[in-house]
């Protein structure tokens, strides 16, 4: 009996070793391959699309909105949703588990921070062959077919996923940080949003960081007055979300501060970072009551109406769903940080994308079908379907974005806030010189840095650390992240 048992165990061990020899690994993908953009309408295929389960069904809703139109083009293609938990903490876990288990989707959901991991780990294919083929077709047909990103789209958002000269992701919309303001609170504070010079944004008189700080000081004075205390006992001036990369990256870029230098060495400890950190800490300490700036990771947008200013990329339709601020908001672009006397000449506005890349595990037919789906997503009909499904950020198409159809019903809101100063828009690139597995640790280090500066309560310290100490801690965290 013992012999039998031993034999069974030995067999299992041998099998285990045999099957464990080589897990599912994605080899480096060629960036130049044959593509077919003339897919037979009757092609039968199944397309699995990754959608997050952690966004309240938002992305799933968008994909569902695209399916009917796409099915008209390819009636025999079945779309399956691959629902997975996606967050900054769990993105790598989700993707790597999907690949290791051999259950990878055909289209990976990604954004400005996540894409680098997908590209560096060979998870998604370069879309250059498709862009080239589509552009060629566009030229051949005089614009009747194919794509011309430069002519019809905000091409800079396509370039945000560029790596080694190749673009990997098709963005579904244009995400740009704007400054929302609470018209009711400003009126209560005696600030007339219609006439106050600081609340204007024109070529000649841009909305600047100094304007914002000045307004915040006025709001803070009001909040500390008897009236303010009565009406907004826990109110504050600015919900900045400085721990959001679209915000802190823009501020860092404006100040010339960088996490890593071009050689990939930690470079956070610099005069530029010190100047930026001092500015942010001043915001926190300015009135001694910490009523000016607050970071927020709770996701409570606009702190339910308890703040005067709020950085966000949500469209007005989304903001209007917030009962605390409904009917009492307007928008300005992200404030330009520029001050020639202080050497600040490179203002930046945080922006990014959410979109999908094609899995490198797809067979050729599925890959071509996946491209057709992405192409439909950015077509006029596809973008219109997304807008109808509630996508309230500007369309990636110039015609729809400038036509403001993405926010019809909110024409009293300054919709130019999303489109103005496109030359200053920057996406986060601070992790691309490092190993992809370090991406989220780097992100976390910078988030903690910002929280330490502007919201020490969140990090649990009773006495805020000095600015120099915050920088030193961040430097240590960054070194650890890339070690």
């Amino acid at each position, binding site marked *: *009996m013992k012999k039998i048992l031993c034999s*069974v*165990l030995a067999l*299992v*061990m041998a*099998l*285990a*070793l045999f099957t*464990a*020899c*080589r*897990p599912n*690994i*994605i*080899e*480096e993908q060629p960036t130049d391959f044959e593509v077919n953009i003339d897919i037979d309408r009757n092609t039968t295929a199944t397309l699995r699309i990754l959608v997050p389960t952690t966004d309240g069904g938002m992305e799933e809703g968008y994909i569902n909105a695209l399916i009917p139109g796409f099915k008209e083009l390819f009636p025999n293609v079945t779309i399956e949703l691959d629902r997975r938990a996606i967050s900054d*903490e*769990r993105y*790598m*876990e989700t*993707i*790597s*588990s999907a*690949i*290791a288990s051999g259950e990878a989707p055909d289209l990976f959901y990604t954004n400005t921070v996540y894409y680098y991991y997908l590209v560096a*780990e*060979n*998870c998604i294919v370069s879309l250059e062959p498709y862009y080239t083929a589509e552009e060629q077709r566009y030229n051949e047909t005089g614009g009747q077919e194919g794509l011309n990103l430069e002519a019809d789209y905000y091409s800079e958002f396509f370039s945000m996923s560029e790596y080694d000269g190749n673009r990997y992701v098709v963005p579904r919309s244009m995400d740009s940080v704007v400054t929302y303001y609470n018209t009711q609170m400003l009126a209560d504070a005696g600030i007339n949003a219609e006439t106050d010079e600081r609340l204007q944004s024109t070529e000649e008189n841009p909305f600047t960081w100094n304007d914002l700080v000045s307004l915040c000081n006025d709001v803070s004075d009001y909040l500390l007055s008897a009236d303010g205390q009565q009406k907004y006992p*826990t109110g504050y001036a600015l919900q900045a979300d400085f721990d959001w990369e679209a915000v802190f990256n823009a501020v860092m870029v404006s100040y010339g501060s960088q996490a890593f230098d071009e050689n990939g060495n930690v470079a956070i400890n610099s005069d530029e970072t010190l100047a930026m950190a001092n500015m942010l800490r001043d915001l926190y300490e300015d009135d001694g009551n910490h009523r000016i700036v607050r970071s927020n990771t709770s996701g409570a947008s606009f702190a339910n109406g308890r703040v005067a200013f709020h950085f966000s990329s949500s469209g007005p339709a989304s903001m209007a769903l917030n009962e605390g601020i409904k009917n009492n908001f307007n928008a300005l672009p992200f404030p330009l940080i520029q001050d020639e006397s202080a050497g600040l000449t490179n203002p930046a506005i945080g922006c990014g994308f959410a979109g999908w890349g094609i899995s490198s595990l797809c067979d050729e037919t599925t890959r071509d079908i996946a491209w057709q789906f992405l192409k439909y997503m950015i077509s006029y009909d596809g973008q219109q379907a997304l807008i109808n499904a509630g996508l309230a950020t500007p369309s990636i198409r110039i015609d729809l974005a400038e036509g403001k159809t993405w926010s019809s019903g909110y024409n009293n809101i300054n919709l130019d806030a999303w489109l103005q100063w496109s030359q200053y828009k920057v996406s986060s690139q601070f992790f691309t010189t490092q190993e992809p*597995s*370090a991406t*989220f*640790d780097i992100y*976390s280090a910078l988030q*903690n840095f910002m929280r330490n500066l502007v919201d020490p*309560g*969140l*990090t*649990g*310290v*009773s006495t805020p650390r000095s600015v120099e100490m915050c920088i030193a801690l961040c430097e240590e965290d960054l070194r*650890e992240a890339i*070690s």
Partner: protein
Amino acid sequence: MVTETAKTGCGETAAVTLPRRPSNLKKRIKGSITGWLFILPTVFGICVFTLYPIIQSLYYSFFDYNMTSRFDFVGFGNYIRIFSGDSDMPKVVTNTLLFALLNIPVTLCGSYLLALFLNVNLKGIKVFRVLYYLPCTMPAIVSGIVWSYIMRYNVETPGLFNQMFSAMGLPMSRFFYADNFTAVASIVLMNLWSLGGGTIIWLAQFKNIPKQLYEAAEIDGAGTVHRFFAITLPMSTPMVFYNLITNFIVTLQFNGTLTFAPNTGAGNNNATLMFGLKIYLEAFRRTNMGYACALAWVLVVAVGLVTALLFKTNKWVQYDN
């Protein structure tokens, strides 16, 4: 047919021919086929869900495997890195040992004392038994979230404990948010919440102690304290030993901070980063699966060594009555 020699009634030996007996193996298989079928699902489960992953993890521990694009043989590279190249490890080992040194005595003694209290014959004691056990029915993730609220440190909206401290004029504590020893101590404090689970085991052990021993001791004039030290405690030692080993293993594997401590459970300044969490973070947060497997095997060896040591020194355990 087989030929065997047999003794005749007169004491002579004679060759006799007997029908062939079924082989020993076949007979045993035939006789035990029902038993085999009964254990088949379990054996299958153990092979697929335990044995296979164990072997696979050992195999992966010799590779630089990131679950997506890299699977390179590194020999003992991962093991060398654990002992010489990972700057987290001193902190991980310190935190884990500190937690074990605090948590094991506190939970063992705490649950034992609680069990003694719940073992007395008082009216309504069963209600208390249920009440103390009740927290164990709550999923760990829920209790983790509840405790993160109870111990929340925030100037504007402090948690229950810090509100109590404030009311008493005491300074607030950072609990899990602390970047020092306080963070680990907070976890030990939190673990008191589930003392009721261990209490049930002690109570079962107490019920197994023969009543005659107490009766005889009473007749001999032994008081309550004397009876405890002479009967209850010695008779509990097998369960003390069992709980000691299981607590030790569970404590070394602890990764519960994931649900409530900041920085993905590692705490500020890695104050709550322990071995179990380190394995999780390496495997899934950093997708260093090969390295995580090596860490797991180091933990297995460490647990094995300590368990062996405990077994070698178990002369204090009283197994018979």
